């Protein structure tokens, strides 16, 4: 049984400080309207789980928050900085917001340790020895310090994903975004990644997680968001969300997935 399922609801420490604010945000891919009038406020320490059918725009939403995708209308304000064309802001945002991808996106030509120290050394201008120390600390935390000198291709999917989480943490982000982190993993490896994420949630990190792992959502989420066709259809506390889904579309989705 996964830690995520046995743990019970985590206590959370949400402050009133706003980390992410999205106002009336719209995005199109060509003529296709992907995100429609999205409003979203995330406070410091808050943990949000986003779910919904594929093509509903949930990945696009968090990619917009990390400025990997451009939005066309409305505002996204991350840690007090408004996203826009300003490249300097962009680089700043990306160092504050960590992101974990479905396909890990580790750098296959570098060792695990080099993957982890690259950002701190080149972007944060940290001394090499300090960067290695930080990297080893986070590798301990994701429980694979002995793999430091291997290459990503020599590790299992679950291990790679934990390295990817550690790589983001090495930059000292204030917010962590997860884009379906367990979807590309074998069932046996999902648990180890979810446990790592639960550990991270316990430290009070602000997190937005796109996932279909409902057990995980019940454990760590302060709120669950359900998206469909570019709209945020429903947003609620997890216990309410799972026991009394309001919207018909949510009910249908949950009946198929649970």
């Amino acid at each position, binding site marked *: 049984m996964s830690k995520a399922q046995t743990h019970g609801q985590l206590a959370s420490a949400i402050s009133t400080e706003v980390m992410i604010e999205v106002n009336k945000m719209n995005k199109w891919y060509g003529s296709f309207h992907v995100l429609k009038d999205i409003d979203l406020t995330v406070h410091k320490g808050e943990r949000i789980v986003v779910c919904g059918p594929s093509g509903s725009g949930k990945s696009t939403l968090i990619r917009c928050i990390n400025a990997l995708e451009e939005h066309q209308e409305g505002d996204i304000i991350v840690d007090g900085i408004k996203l826009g064309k300003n490249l300097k802001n962009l680089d700043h945002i990306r*160092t504050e917001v960590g992101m974990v991808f479905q*396909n890990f996106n580790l750098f296959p030509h570098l060792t695990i340790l080099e993957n982890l120290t*690259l950002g701190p050394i080149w*972007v944060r201008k940290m001394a090499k020895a300090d960067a290695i120390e930080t990297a080893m600390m986070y590798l301990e935390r994701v429980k694979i310090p002995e793999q430091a000198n291997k290459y*990503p291709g020599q590790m299992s999917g679950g291990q790679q994903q934990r390295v990817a989480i550690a790589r983001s943490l090495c930059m000292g982000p204030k917010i962590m975004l997860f884009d379906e982190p367990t979807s590309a993993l074998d069932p046996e490896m999902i648990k180890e990644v979810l446990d790592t994420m639960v550990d991270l949630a316990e430290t009070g990190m602000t997190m937005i997680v796109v996932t279909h792992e409902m057990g995980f959502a019940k454990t760590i989420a302060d709120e669950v968001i359900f998206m469909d066709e570019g709209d945020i259809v429903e947003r609620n506390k997890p216990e309410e969300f799972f026991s009394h889904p309001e919207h018909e579309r949510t009910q249908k989705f949950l009946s198929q997935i649970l």
Partner: protein
Amino acid sequence: MAIVKATKTPERPAPISETSILGWLQKNLFSSVFNSVLTLLTTYIIYLTISGVYVWGFVDATFVAETRRECYDNSLTGACWAGVIDWLDNIFYGRYPREELWRINFGGILLAFWMAPLWITRAKGKVLVGASVVAFYPFLAGYLFSGGDKGLFMQVMVSAAIVAFVINMANAIAGLLKQQSIAQFVISSLGQTNAADKSQRNLLIALVVVGFGVAYLWQSSWTVEFVSWTKWGGLFLTLVISGIGIASALPGGIILALGRRSKLPVLRVLSTGFIEIFRSVPLITVLFMATTMFPLFMPEGFVLNKLVQVIIAVVLFNACYMAETVRAGLQAIPKGQAEGAHTIGLGYWGTMGLIIMPQALKHMIPNIVGSFIGLLKDTTLVSIIGLFDILGMLRSISKDIPWLGLHKEPLIFGAILFFIICFAMSKYSRHLEVKLSAGDRH
């Protein structure tokens, strides 16, 4: 009913047909009557060819003779290698003055030493070695080969090249003997500890500056005699042209490829146009354009020598081909790599230089070396516009009075030379591929 297997099935050795030589022969060469006949037939054809070549090239061949007539007197059916041997210096060096040949040999040995660390697995700082060769060696070699008066620029560059060479050698030796870089070695032998410290970095820079001064004084005391480029020729000229082509095609190709993939429309259109124009024209046309048309566009009195024009043409032509190779390599890298790099805050150049390029170049090695081999062979086209490169020299043998009409042997000798060089390049590329794919085991 449930099935539970309590014991592991033990492993057994493979059947003899999978492991023995006889098994291999049977499976691959004599698996059916038809295949057996084919095998025997092919073996017979190979035997005929090889024995024919052996008799012509060795048994009946003449190695010592004064003229082609003497070859015939000796044997009518064998090869006349005497002509090739008589012309060997011309084939390798062209009409370069015989008493100055040491300069070419010395230049070659210098290059071999400079690049030696690239072949030694344990040596560190290979990128720096490669970069310093490309940046400085051409000036040193350029002066060594052409000689004459050194202008101030040449004096500075030659001194810089000497300093770079010495540092490289010292670095390689320190690395092999002490497992340190030369900077660490100097610092630690001066009784200090930390090479990253600012005052010590200044000390190292001071040492380099002093070294430069010494090199400058030393080089200003010697000169070598002027040799006009019109006397350059043979394999030497081929290697000069293709060497410069190879060294500059890759950097040029990377710049053009990045330009073609740029988000800035002007840069993109310019790069694309440049690449497409050069790629859609045969090299020989570009060479003719460079030597006959280009001077027409230049202001009056502006005379570039033909060799420089040819080299510029070869460089541009090959940079455009290389650009397409590089672009293909860049496109093979998944988009996720750039996104991963962005999320740890790397900008455009950081992403390109640290993440995308190293991976792309690794995938491209076979194609890059393929282009290099093509470039080396393409340079023989310069013999058409009147430079006496190796092909020009080989063909001149048949016009030399004693060896009149001797075509076959020189060209076969040339083919063997090219094969040796190209095969070595191809082997080296294979070796690089294997070495660099260490992290690629998926």
